[in-house]
């Protein structure tokens, strides 16, 4: 297959136009989507979706509903007996170190059953 320079130019112009058009349509889609979602979202869906908030955002308020059994289970695999609820492992380690130190009880004699983020 061989094409003339003129054809090549047309293809280039045409392709660039298509790229623009596609991303332009995408612009419209995303804008429309955002508007719809934010309207709908205000009203009803927000509660439901909040539950899907990433577990890693510890600073956000943690609704109790988010702490489903699934979450607890996933974390408990790597931490043995201790249940971490809306708390990541590093934070938990720090909390344990501090409690141990402040209470003057050695870590080996302290037993943590679970650590749960406070609901604000």
């Amino acid at each position, binding site marked *: *297959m*061989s*094409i003339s*320079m003129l054809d*090549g*130019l047309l*293809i*280039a*112009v045409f*392709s*660039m136009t*298509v*790229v*623009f058009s*596609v*991303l*332009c*349509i*995408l*612009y419209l*889609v*995303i*804008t429309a*989507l*955002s508007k719809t*979602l*934010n309207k709908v*979202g205000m009203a009803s*869906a*927000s509660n439901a*979706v*909040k539950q*899907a*908030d*990433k*577990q*890693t955002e510890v600073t956000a308020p943690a609704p109790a509903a988010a702490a489903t059994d699934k979450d607890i289970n*996933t974390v408990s695999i790597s931490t043995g007996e201790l249940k971490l609820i809306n708390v990541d492992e590093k934070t938990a380690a720090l909390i344990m170190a501090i409690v141990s130190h402040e209470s003057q009880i050695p870590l080996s004699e302290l037993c943590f059953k679970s650590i749960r983020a406070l609901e604000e």
Partner: protein
Amino acid sequence: MMFVDALQTIWRNSGFSAITWQQCVMIGIAFVLIYLAIVKKFEPLLLLTIAFGVLLANLPLAGLMNEPPAGSDEPGGLLYYLYLGVKKGIYPSLIFLGIGAMTDFGPLIARPSGLFLGAAAQLGIFSAFLIALALGFTPQEAASIGIIGGADGPTAIFLTTRLAPELLPAIAIAAYSYMALIPMIQPPLMRLLTTKKEREVKMEQLREVTKLERICFPIAVTVFCILLLPSVAPLIGMLMLGNLFRESGVVERLSETAQNALINIVTIFLGVTVGATARADRFLSPDTLKIIALGLIAFAFSTVGGLLFGKIMYWLSGGKINPLIGSAGVSAVPMAARVSQIEGQKANPSNYLLMHAMGPNVAGVIGSAVAAGILLALFG
């Protein structure tokens, strides 16, 4: 006598007896690439592995890329098997899965006009395509060369394996090298094409993006892009699946693996085998020099495209949009956005453009994939 036979066997099998000066040159090129990757930190994840692949492929008689001999039980070379994932187009898609899981499209959702900049910055693809045609490359080769201007490694490798596999090593090396050179290529063009007043513009803070928007974004992009351009499905589909893993928040472990073990394994296999296609007889040709020159042209034109459209948006918005974020539309995430940030801060030390430039920057990834889809539909 056995002893002499054995000695002869060893010698005949030795690379010293077989090496050509072309292979020595290729080994030298491999050393230069290793130097750039380690000391200059040019995209080391891929450039170091590609360079080692170049080295291995040009040590004579090693046969790491040999096909298994037909009608025999003997296996082929190690890299022949690993290369199948490149040849069948699997690795670039899996890398896009990992990139999707690492990418935050939030800034783009907050200000979707970044998509226009991401589109404009594909200008270099088609400019280089035209010049390559004029230099006598076939349309397939010209398209593959042009895609260097997309500043996106996996996209370039994906398209090239389908259109012009013989140019793969030159295009991959050029693409990753120029991506690393973005901080040198872009600033002069940025200062040339914008006024100080434009560069000083501080932009409004981006609005917050809800979780729901973040989740719907990859789904919407998948549906619309693949409906419009089905050939782009392996790239956009995997990019958006990775992003959905990230944003859904319910499959943390899949997102983590896509970003780490999976993408790293694929990067190693892809890098070494792409490098190993750079055999001396193929690579040391005037075409390679042309590709390197055309790649630079493509990067420059893409930057110019993004900047000019940035200026248009500056005028249309009544000076609210800083045209410097236009050059970030070339993709090369996140280097190009950092260059916008640095240049903006040079013009006005209190100017923070990074987050504003991230929108066009990630839009550029989508833009390049779309451009690749068009070229694949036209010439595939």
